[in-house]
């Protein structure tokens, strides 16, 4: 049981917005949907819920297409655009018509207003809402049906640190309750704090998928920097054992070999070591590296960028 996306494709003319995308959103996990701006995240989420039409591909929710669900709001709640609310309507009216359309009791409106902390402003026109209140109202809308899956597009955009923490803790709690959460962002640093799985896309195509640890292991670069008066001798010893080396001034930068292995080799051959330390590229560096092509594509050819 999961949300399964298979071969999802959308083109605008000859520009591919989303191409043959496969991914899954599993219950009990926060799936971070990551990619640079314009990568196709929002288009993908809109197609998953039938708001935009796909050219081809399938999306199923526990085996059923979204349009065939008896009670969509109980299966999926979504906030795809926090500002997609009539500014002249009150928060309560907005939630009331969504609840009525979903066959939910009016009492549910009060519950989600309380859950998201906007009960006090429920009668106020949405046009007077701050960005944070808009995001909370969007999450309240998504939670109306007490859904099994929750899709949120950039839910922390523009929030202050307190708001970001509230969203993070809220989503983690929902995942603990067994719900499947799909949350998009273009910031890995934020998602890495609470996402269990990552789906990284660029130019509408899947770049990588897996856990945050898997992503780190797969894409983060680990190097060992060595400082020694015997670097020349050390280079041949390291390379004979499978390590790769690169001279950077007085330092030797080693890849594919651990610091302890280098230390052992040096000791065995009585080569003095003055400095030996390991460096790991940050998750953010790894992310920028894997999405570099998409980033270059965006900044190098604006005429080809497709809206996400």
């Amino acid at each position, binding site marked *: 049981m999961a949300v399964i996306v298979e071969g999802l494709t959308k083109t605008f003319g000859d520009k591919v917005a989303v191409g043959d995308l496969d991914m899954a959103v599993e219950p009990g996990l926060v799936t971070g949907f990551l990619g640079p701006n314009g990568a196709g995240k929002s288009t993908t989420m809109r197609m998953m819920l039938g708001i*935009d039409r796909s050219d081809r591909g399938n999306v199923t929710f526990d085996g059923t297409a979204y349009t065939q669900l008896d009670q969509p709001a109980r299966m999926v709640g979504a906030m795809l*655009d926090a500002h*997609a609310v009539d500014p*002249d*309507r009150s928060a309560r*009216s907005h939630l009331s018509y969504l609840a*009525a*359309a979903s*066959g939910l009791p009016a009492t549910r409106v009060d519950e989600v207003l309380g859950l998201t902390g906007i009960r006090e402003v429920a009668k106020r026109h949405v046009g007077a809402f701050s960005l944070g209140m808009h995001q909370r109202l969007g999450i309240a809308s998504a939670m109306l049906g007490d859904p099994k899956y929750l899709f949120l597009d950039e839910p922390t955009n523009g929030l202050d640190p307190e708001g970001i923490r509230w969203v993070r803790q809220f989503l983690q709690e929902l995942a603990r309750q067994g719900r499947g959460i799909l949350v998009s962002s273009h910031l890995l640093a934020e998602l890495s704090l609470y996402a269990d799985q990552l789906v990284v896309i660029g130019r509408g195509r899947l770049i990588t998928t897996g856990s945050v640890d898997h992503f780190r292991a797969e894409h983060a670069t680990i190097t060992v920097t060595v400082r020694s008066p015997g670097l020349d001798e050390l280079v041949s010893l390291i390379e004979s054992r499978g390590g790769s080396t690169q001279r950077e001034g007085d330092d030797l930068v080693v890849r594919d070999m651990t610091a302890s292995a280098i230390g052992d080799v040096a000791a065995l051959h009585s080569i003095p070591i003055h400095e030996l330390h390991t460096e790991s590229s940050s998750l953010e560096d790894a992310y920028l590296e894997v999405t570099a092509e998409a980033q270059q594509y965006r900044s190098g050819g604006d005429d080809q960028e497709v*809206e996400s």
Partner: protein
Amino acid sequence: MTDLVLSEWIKFKSLRGSWVRLAFAIAINLAIVAFGLWFFNRSIGDSEPDTGLTNRIGTISGGVSMAVILMVVVGVIVYSGEIKSRSIIPSVTVVPNRTNMVAAKAILVGLVGLATGVLLMVLNTGISMLVLDLEGFPLSLDDTDVARVIVGGVVFVTLSALFGLGIGLMANSQTLGITIGILWPTAIESSAQAFLPDWIGRFLPFEAGSAMLEVPANPDLPPWEGAAVFLLWAALVIVVGGSMFSKRDLGSS
């Protein structure tokens, strides 16, 4: 479907603009009724006053032609207002079956149009009958032409709102929808009639709809055949607009 119609009703009633537009339609209609009665009263003093049934009934139906234009706008905004505010995105998320959503909107618009039409015609008839009676030119509800114009006015107002819904669905833009909705009955049809033969021109939507208000009835297009033609037009634009809506990408609207 009851849930969906209730949802559409909450959307409609929770916006002040909905009530302002309906009030404006009623106010303009009443202003024209008042003007018609004043004009009728003034003509009594003429050397050859025309106080016949046609003119007396005209005081009831005179304001309807203007009210239907505003009812078209009411219908247009029921859909295009959601496009403008982008609230169509959460709406479609909870109601992915867009055909059902269009059906619910049509029922809501039909009911709002019917209620407004009844209110308009009750006010118009009551005021006109009272004033004309005081002036010694009574109107009777027993007169088939009077009864037909009253019912015809209600039908005309209702179908105009539904026609507006179809225009809104097709235009997919509030500004474009309102522009077309206002220009259609006021300019587009009259321009088209200048180029079209009479036997085609009388089947244009508002020309056919206004046959319900004509006294005496137009023999070339009798009142209820005119109503049927306008109903077909309203159904056509809703079906075509609904079909376009069903295929449309809404995220980038």
